[in-house]
């Protein structure tokens, strides 16, 4: 409870349920008050996070207020408790019990006897409650109503209308939580059924939640179809590796193979929801591209399978005594990132380490080392914010649970949202956000113009803001001048943790500045080494440039897609020794000299820090996996090099991180950068803007065709003015080109600056770096194709 809420006196009400007195806050529903007493009233439509519907009528109870009884049993999920209320549930009232049995019989009249072929069989509330409050035998002798089945309402979600009990959980979720009312109840009476709008496919990023909350098998996931029964599955609480939202998850494994992932419950973070990427993008673990054993490039120029001692010796030979850079990638867990950080400092004696496998700037380096670590904004701050400002951040695409939290408040109390973006995305429209249209490069000036923020406002800064010169400085200045809460929300799950443990050139673990001799001494003592490298390290781009110019002899790369950084990145690595720690074959392993296979998230334990800095620890979901976490391999490699980092297990690493206190000495100061500006364009030229859609060509989404089927298709977003000049209508193909190449996608006309054009950053047919060589701020040519 927040301090403000605590001050508000909550009126408590006492009522009697089944003869027991219970005191609950005013407004509590009878069904919830009964739960507090441990009395379970059967229900289907009731869900604590959805508004009451009273749709299924299964929770009927007898209610009497001040001696006056309701003439008929009432739905306990819709009635709030009142003083003097006497409730009799099925346990004490024969009337309520008979009513519930009657409802159950009615629900089962048209319910098919599908249990043997239904995915829900074994974990089905209808099955369970039919056992607890239903009849043993059916009295119905008529013909059951049938529908065509199953209907694919999207490539991920299948609908079986015969099984539906019309609880409206899915439609309420879509409407109230996700804001995607693509699914609704059609028709009336016995023919009432869940349906989708014919013109709009069910393209919600959150559709998997409807499968999870469906109390029967009406909505099932295409990927989990007929795969397993609940008694086959071994469930492990887990954390999501796909973004920095930090969802609690549950991973269900059958015989060493992940079969499904479900949203876990964490009221402070993801409540009970997650996004479809987190739910369904796990097949990359079992892809054919997985690397099974270490690989060493032989004299013939080909990679050959090698034993671990051989490969470690080859890797050590390439790194020992050399000038080495380390690229960590944004997917590392805290423990792994710590391993990279310590490995770079102790075994390689360098500060050339960076976790940013994306566009970045020196301004961002300064922002991260001076500002980002000290930020304390949380989800709860969004809940009580008076205004949310989004800078270089599309929550629905880049941190879906942040979107759900903002949307919740927008729906509940019309929370004003301000977004500085090239155009109003679907997420922005759902949040009814005020758009400050910006041409990529001009962000700083637009941010400086934002006013009317208070100390309760929240400024959410995305990692993309670093692509615009001066924008992070402007965001910091805005927060400083208004007292608003600032948050930095990276896209990848590992970035916040990597920053914490110093997988960046300017910081050592615990926020110790590299430039501070006291901090270095403090850490050297903790690590038991004589000294730590003093020279300031290189950023990702500088490491790659130094590799190309042979200022570095070798690069250690963990889980980086070079096309996330720049078009030249891969080419820059060709002349150096490359050690790649990867789960699957990739562009980097194709050029690497030594490849060491590492464990994917399901196969290891570890911790992610979400954007708030909240630890999201998870355990191995596949217990008998033989793959090892990065940190363990780095520790073996350090031994081989002869400079031990002593991190033999993830648990030992976590203990060591715990034992290192946060740095309480002086921190580096933020070096603001003056405003940049967008390039001037004329004629068919435009300034490029882009962001990654949630579902795109990301490598962690490999192998899941059903998920890819709901990805939003690529469009080139242009303004009305530009569309008129080009003579294109909505949906006409336009070509966006630079000297490097071009992208040809349908045009989408929307409200945006005339000089701007937006494309998705890494979607099918539109890969900004691969096709155009840049992600934003570049002058491109837009013509009708």
């Amino acid at each position, binding site marked *: 409870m927040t301090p403000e809420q605590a001050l508000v006196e909550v009126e408590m009400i006492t009522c009697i349920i089944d003869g027991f007195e219970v005191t609950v806050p005013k407004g509590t529903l009878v069904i919830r008050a009964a739960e507090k007493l441990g009395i379970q009233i059967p229900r289907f439509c009731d869900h604590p996070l959805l508004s009451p519907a009273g749709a299924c009528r299964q929770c009927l109870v007898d209610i009497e207020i001040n001696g006056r009884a309701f003439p008929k049993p009432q739905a306990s999920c819709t009635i709030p408790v009142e003083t003097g209320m006497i409730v009799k549930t099925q346990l004490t009232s024969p009337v309520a019990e008979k009513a519930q049995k009657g409802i159950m019989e009615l629900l089962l009249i048209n319910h098919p006897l599908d*249990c*043997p*072929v239904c995915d829900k*069989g*074994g974990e089905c509330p209808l099955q369970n409650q039919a056992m607890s409050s239903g009849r043993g035998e059916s009295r119905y002798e008529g013909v059951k109503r049938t529908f065509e*089945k*199953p209907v694919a309402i999207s490539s991920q979600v299948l609908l079986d209308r015969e099984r539906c009990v019309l609880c409206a959980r899915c439609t309420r979720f879509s409407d109230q939580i996700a804001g995607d009312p693509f699914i609704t109840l059609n028709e009336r009476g016995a023919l009432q059924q869940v349906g989708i709008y014919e013109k709009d496919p069910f393209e919600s990023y959150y559709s998997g939640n409807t499968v999870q909350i469906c109390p029967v098998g009406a909505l099932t996931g295409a990927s989990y*179809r*007929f*795969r*397993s*029964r609940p*008694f*086959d599955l071994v469930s492990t609480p887990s954390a999501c590796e796909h973004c920095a939202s930090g969802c609690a998850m549950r991973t269900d494994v059958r015989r060493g193979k992940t079969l499904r992932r479900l949203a876990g419950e964490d009221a402070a973070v993801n409540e009970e929801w997650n996004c479809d990427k987190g739910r369904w993008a796990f097949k990359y673990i079992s892809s054919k591209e997985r690397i099974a054993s270490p690989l060493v490039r032989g004299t013939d120029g080909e990679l050959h399978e090698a034993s671990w001692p051989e490969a470690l010796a080859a890797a050590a030979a390439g790194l020992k005594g050399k000038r080495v850079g380390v690229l960590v990638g944004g997917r590392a867990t805290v423990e792994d990132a710590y391993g990279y950080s310590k490995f770079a400092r102790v075994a390689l004696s360098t500060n050339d380490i960076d976790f940013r496998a994306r566009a970045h700037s020196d301004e961002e380096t300064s922002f991260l080392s001076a500002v980002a670590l000290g930020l304390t904004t949380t989800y709860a701050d969004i809940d009580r914010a008076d205004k949310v400002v989004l800078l270089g951040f599309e929550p629905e695409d880049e941190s879906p649970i942040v979107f759900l939290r903002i949307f919740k408040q927008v729906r509940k109390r019309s929370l004003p949202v301000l977004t500085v973006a090239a155009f109003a995305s679907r997420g922005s429209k759902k949040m009814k956000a005020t758009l400050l249209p910006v041409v990529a490069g001009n962000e700083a000036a637009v941010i400086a113009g934002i006013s009317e923020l208070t100390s309760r406002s929240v400024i959410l800064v995305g990692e993309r803001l670093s692509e615009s010169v001066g924008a992070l400085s402007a965001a910091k200045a805005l927060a400083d001048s208004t007292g608003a809460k600032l948050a930095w929300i990276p896209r990848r799950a590992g970035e916040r943790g990597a920053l914490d443990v110093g997988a960046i050139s300017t910081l050592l673990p615990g926020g110790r500045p590299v430039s501070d001799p006291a901090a270095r001494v403090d850490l050297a003592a903790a690590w038991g080494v004589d000294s730590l490298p003093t020279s300031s390290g290189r950023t990702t781009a500088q490491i790659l440039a130094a590799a190309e110019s042979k200022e570095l002899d070798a690069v250690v790369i963990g889980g980086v897609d070079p096309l996330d950084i720049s078009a030249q990145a891969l080419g820059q690595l060709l002349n150096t020794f490359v050690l790649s720690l990867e789960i699957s074959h990739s562009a980097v392993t194709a050029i690497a000299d030594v490849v060491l296979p590492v464990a994917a998230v399901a196969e290891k334990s570890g911790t992610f820090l979400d954007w708030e800095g909240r630890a999201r620890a998870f355990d191995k979901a596949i217990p008998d996996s033989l793959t090892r976490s990065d940190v363990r391999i780095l520790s073996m490699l350090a031994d081989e090099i002869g400079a031990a980092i002593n991190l033999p297990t993830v648990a030992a690493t976590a203990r060591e991180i715990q034992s290192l206190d946060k740095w309480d000495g002086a921190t580096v100061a933020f070096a603001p950068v003056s405003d940049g500006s967008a390039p001037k364009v004329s004629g068919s030229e435009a300034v490029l803007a882009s962001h990654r859609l949630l579902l795109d060509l990301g490598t962690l989404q490999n192998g899941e065709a059903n998920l890819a089927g709901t990805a939003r298709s690529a469009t080139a977003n242009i303004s009305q003015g530009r569309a008129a000049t080009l003579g294109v209508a909505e949906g006409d193909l336009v070509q966006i080109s630079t000297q490097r190449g071009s992208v040809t996608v349908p045009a989408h006309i929307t409200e945006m600056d005339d000089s701007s054009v937006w494309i998705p950053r890494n979607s099918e047919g539109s890969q900004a770096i691969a096709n155009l060589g840049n992600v934003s701020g570049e002058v491109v040519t837009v013509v009708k194709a």
Partner: protein
Amino acid sequence: MAENSLTPRPEDFGLAKAASESVPITDQEPSGFFKQLLGFWVTFQAMFKKPNTVQYPEVKEPTAPRFHGRHQLNRHEDGLEKCIGCELCAWACPADAILVEGANNEEGAQFSPGERYGRVYQINYLRCIFCGLCIEACPTRALTMTNEYELADDQRSKLIFEKEDLLAPLRQGMLMPPHPMYPGSDDGTYYRGEVKGSHPSQETAPHA
């Protein structure tokens, strides 16, 4: 005896000595001569009976009709598998001897009527106790037991029977799945036994 000295006796608890100790367990005294002769009469009678010994394995006798032998996965009359991969047999199995993995009947790859079929079906006869609970659990009568009892083998791995080992042979009029369902039928008509054989249109492209 040693065990007896460990078991507490009533007097150990300060109770009276049980009467049972003083009473003999049997009242057998040496039988009289005629009684003994009566006993040998039974033995003597057997000498004139037909012997029950069967010279197995040279001679094999049929089992009782409801003997619990090796399982069989049955087929519908047109050859489609009755098993829908529901795993209820695996669920019912007290010895955890059955492994089933279901899968989706795709267009062009229909193995059983309806949406679902058993892609993987294994019974581990090292574990099976032939209790028959799986047969009771089966909702489509796909799984029944044959009278075959000769299940010994020389390797443990040979005693895990796969689906192809358990499936009933194709009888007259049956087609090897996958093939489409009988025209105009659904899983209900199959279940009610209304499909009596295969239809020429079910013959799909010849298998390689």
